[in-house]
């Protein structure tokens, strides 16, 4: 790819970014081709399993990029991003649920199955409109966005920072998890939403649809990445990093710290929501365990493993950790926790700047090691 404009040039003016984007484009093209053009017997065939897996990793990667933006660049350690991810997922899940129509086991034209057998008589108000894709798509953005906006507005306005902020984001996702677990809430309780049939009229298990979802994930990841990269390169990005390092000092030179934080937080929540929305049709289920506090912590860990404060590091971390998980749980199902645990310990001890830090070390001309700011 050849950078043509100055904007492109600066966006792509980083080796990691260029590598990441090339790999992404290659993947987005090659995987569908290998999947569709070769049949199952061929050695070149790429199974739908593998494609879906990579698609899933890409949505995780987008989530990781979102977390890296708030944490790596703005210093907001959000332990609640899984909640935004899950909310986006639920919005999409509700759409998919309503697409089932009469094809549910109880053949109710309106009510999803779980409502029928729990004896619900009519569709709750908050399920209205989700039969339309545009509405669901809007909700994918609005629900996480507005929640982040409200929550962030409350928190940043009162200058909640550091661990206090982390813990209340955690409380948020925990509360949402408990709420969504409740069957009375009308989101299918513990089972969540599943048994999807089609999306935009295409059968959800059709190879074509799968490819579509895969490519959509790749595009979302690419665009999300570039948007974040643009932000971090802009002056606003430097303000955001200044806030991370010395919040009150930033105030004294005239920046409205709260507004910047709120904006970054909200933007990042929207990205997380989009990631969740793409995740759900590919894995086929969304349920409250996605809100588990531990999930949010894991996202932070992906970012740390990859290398905090470099967007491509976040991507690398998400893919590496999740691939390791997929691989270990099958290859050494009885011992995989040792392997994963050891990975985390070793990366921390020996790769203080994450996996991409290792790569940079062998790259001449990279910035000198940055002693971490001592604050959370």
């Amino acid at each position, binding site marked *: 790819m050849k950078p043509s404009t100055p904007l492109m040039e600066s966006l792509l003016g980083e080796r990691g970014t260029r590598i990441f984007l090339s790999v992404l484009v290659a993947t987005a093209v090659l995987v569908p081709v290998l999947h569709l053009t070769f049949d199952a017997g061929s050695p070149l065939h790429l*199974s*739908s*399993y593998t494609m*879906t*897996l990579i698609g*899933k990793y890409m949505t995780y990667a987008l989530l990781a990029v979102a977390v890296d933006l708030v944490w790596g660049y703005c210093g907001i350690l959000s332990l609640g991003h899984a909640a935004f991810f899950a909310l986006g997922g639920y919005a999409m899940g509700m759409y998919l649920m309503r697409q089932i129509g*009469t*094809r*549910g*086991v*109880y*053949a*109710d034209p309106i009510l999803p*199955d*779980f409502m*029928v*057998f*729990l*004896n619900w008589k009519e569709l709750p108000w908050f399920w209205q409109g989700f039969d339309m894709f545009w509405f669901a798509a809007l909700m994918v953005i609005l629900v996480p966005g507005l929640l982040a906006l409200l929550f962030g507005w409350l928190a940043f306005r009162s200058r909640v920072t550091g661990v206090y902020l982390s813990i209340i984001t955690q409380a948020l996702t925990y509360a949402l998890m*408990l709420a969504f*677990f*409740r*069957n009375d809430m009308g989101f299918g*309780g*513990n*089972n*969540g939403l*599943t*048994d*999807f*049939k089609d999306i935009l009229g295409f059968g959800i*298990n059709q190879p074509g649809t799968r490819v579509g979802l895969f490519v959509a994930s790749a595009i979302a990841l690419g665009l999300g990445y570039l948007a974040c990269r643009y932000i971090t390169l802009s002056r606003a990005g430097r303000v955001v990093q200044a806030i991370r390092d010395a919040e009150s000092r930033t105030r004294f030179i005239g920046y409205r710290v709260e507004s910047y934080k709120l904006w970054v937080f909200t933007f990042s929540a929207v990205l997380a929501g989009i990631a969740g929305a793409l995740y759900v049709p590919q*894995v*086929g*289920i969304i*349920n409250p*365990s*996605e809100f588990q506090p531990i999930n949010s912590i894991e996202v932070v860990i992906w970012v740390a493993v990859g290398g905090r404060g470099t967007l491509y590091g976040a991507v690398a971390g998400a893919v590496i950790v999740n691939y390791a*998980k*997929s691989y270990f*749980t*099958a290859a050494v*199902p*009885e011992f*995989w*926790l040792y392997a994963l645990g050891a990975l985390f310990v070793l990366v921390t001890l020996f790769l203080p700047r994450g996996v991409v830090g290792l790569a940079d070390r062998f790259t001449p001309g990279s910035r000198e090691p940055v002693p971490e700011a001592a604050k959370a």
Partner: protein
Amino acid sequence: ADTIKVGVLHSLSGTMAISETTLKDTVLMMIEQQNKKGGVLGKKLEAVVVDPASNWPLFAEKAEQLLVKDKVAVVFGCWTSVSRKSVLPVFEKNNGLLFYPVQYEGEESSKNVFYTGAAPNQQAIPAVDYLMKDIGVKRWVLAGTDYVYPRTTNKILEAYLKAKGVKQEDILINYTPFGHSDWQSIVADIKKFGSAGKKTAVVSTINGDANVPFYKELGNQKISAEDIPVVAFSVGEEELSGIDTKPLVGHLAAWNYFESISTPVNKSFIKEWHAYTKNPKRVTNDPMEAHVIGFNMWVKAVEKAKTIDVAKVTDAMIGIEVPNMTGGTAKMLANHHLTKPVFIGEIRADGQFDVVWKTEGLVPGDAWSDYLPGSKDIEADWVTLKCGNYNTKTKKCSGQNYE
């Protein structure tokens, strides 16, 4: 391939490992024994074990891996309903074969799944009958973990009790989250509810880890089985082996199998299990029996069909009979559920059960409950109707996810 691959999809880590690890071992033991007998269709069986880590989307991923990458002939797996729901589309899409060994809420019958655990009519209803008729219970606490299985079971029970003339004020329903650990208030409430002068019992669909603190609290608040018995549907020998059972003596459980039932089959199974696990104290339980039955049925069906082809095997499955471990016969019905005996046992101090009641004969599993308005018109029949949810009113088959 010169082996037949058998997938094992049980959580070995995370919250469900407590229950599921044993099932993995059970399947491995069955495979080992079958291989000693020469395998199936002249080929050895090869286990493919994965760990979905109590993570529901991971269940789907691992299921797909087993079916697509490892190309297993059959999968034994899942415990929670949500994990089953999560893998269901994967099995239907890839035309796999799943044996699901746990008692569950019913309301499902998939072409690709055989349900070897109890449907609600094979556990809950008989248990309530026993309490009502033999114990004279007049007041009911339905306590459960807040998820589909308890919700559905309690819906069914509530309808059933009301049909039997129990008044609304004599039913207390309570839901708690998974892993609920502070039972003080709820147990105190139960105590108060039970002190109104009528014989009271608790029907517990409390799941997994929450049981230990629940029973501890019962013991400490001195609620004895003689005053307010608790009959549980999710507490078996395995769960009791993690609890100090002395204070629980007399509380009840309803299952289709108890380790203490002394039949020759069961005795030899327990012996083999102890030998296989090299642990003479390892207990057996109901879902294990379900897996053993399921496994034997699958072997029989494969031998009958002379192939591992899923379509042929599923056809051959229906009507297959294998002995269960309590002296009866398990038969695979057209709705992919089994016939099962129902036992009520009282907890003993050693963590085993004394059977105090059992059904006369075998109860056929009912996929669609007759006590739920939405499902009483639905039928599952994979022989004549070729449908898992056929509506007898509209004469339509719905919810099929394949072809």
